[in-house]
């Protein structure tokens, strides 16, 4: 399911390629705390290991993020999902889709993989309950055809968490 949405994608534009190379270089020198980029030769799909921050509900837990970049990145947001099993969180669906505004409507080309990772970790860290979103089953059922979360019309749960 996670790969079907990306199978028809176009290769990265020159601008996107250039920028991702720079981001990767910066990441290697200065990775965001709690994250590890899994080395591959695929610039267009990054797999990133996330470690729950100490002192939070997710400490000592490890998850994997999959980041797929569109042809016109960063003019378009990347698709970011957790590779199941996804962390239990009120804004994270069991299929790995994440309800976070900056990944969709509030995307800005000045954001980077690194800043997305920091937002996701802070979303995890501020959680007070380990549970799925209320509409989890309905949503996941609707996504069974392999729909990308970028095609979802998100109704953001709230701005604080």
């Amino acid at each position: 399911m996670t790969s079907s949405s990306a199978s028809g994608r176009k290769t990265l534009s020159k601008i996107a390629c250039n920028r991702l190379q720079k981001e990767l270089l910066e990441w290697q020198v200065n990775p965001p705390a709690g994250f590890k980029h899994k080395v591959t030769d695929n610039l267009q799909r990054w797999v990133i290991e996330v470690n729950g921050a100490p002192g939070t509900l997710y400490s000592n837990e490890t998850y994997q993020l999959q980041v797929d970049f569109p042809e016109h990145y960063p003019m378009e947001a990347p698709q970011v999902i957790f590779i199941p099993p996804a962390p239990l969180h009120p804004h994270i669906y069991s299929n790995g889709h994440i309800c976070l505004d900056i990944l969709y409507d509030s995307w800005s080309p000045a954001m980077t993989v690194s800043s997305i990772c920091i937002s996701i970790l802070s979303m995890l860290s501020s959680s007070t309950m380990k549970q799925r979103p209320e509409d989890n089953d309905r949503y996941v059922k609707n996504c069974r055809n392999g729909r990308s979360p970028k095609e979802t019309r998100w109704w953001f749960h709230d701005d604080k968490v």
Partner: protein
Amino acid sequence: MGPSLAFSTAEELRKAGNSYFKKGFFNAAIEAYTEAITLCPDIPVYYTNRALCHLKRNDWTRVEEDSRKAIQLEHNLVKAHYMLGLALLQKQEYADGVKELERALDLGRGANPKGYMVEEIWQELAKAKYMEWEDLSSKRSWELQNLKEACENALKEKHDAFEMEGFLDEAGPTHMRQLEALGRVFEKAAEADTPSEVPDYLCCKITLDIFRDPVITPSGVTYERSVILNHLEKVGNFDPITREPLDQSQLIPNFSIKEAVEAYLQEHGWAYRTE
């Protein structure tokens, strides 16, 4: 043949030339443009079109001739300056070639900052500048290396003389310190020519690349012009960093950053590397 008939015939020949060109029949295109020029020798586009055919055939002398002729007729033609620049670089007339490409870049940005021509001209210019840096920096590094060896040898001779005179205890540590200091001095001297990272303040927050044509927003953030224009068109009317509302008309060239970039590139030619 009257002047208006001459012109309309020449225009027909230009169109014929263009269609030959598109099919890759460069010799036929050259003939058509040449006839057009015979009828109307004062129309610059006939020369630039013919220059482009010569360029496709790698006939650089003729590229130069036709480009110069076009510029004589109309001094601010982007394509003519661009092709003249390429022709001069081919002839190893480095400084003049770069000057022409810079002129083409300025004119091109004035006409259409997002156009493909601007990107293409920049690529050629950066390539030329990078090659110049490679050439000069390898000469500089050779020179430094020789000088360093000479200095090391001189220090060693001095040290050996001390040893002969029996000042062993003092001479040893001093000699090591001097060698280390010498190493630092030469490392420092080679710093500007050592590729590293361009400082963040000279890079666009979107491209993460060194600025070429920086513009500043009312929020005080500077971006690469073509990219912020693209953002306003495709993503939304807001400043990507501050998210304040932003309209294209509010973008102002940031000449200070542009000068800072030029000064930096002057000292660190490796930063012209395009990929």
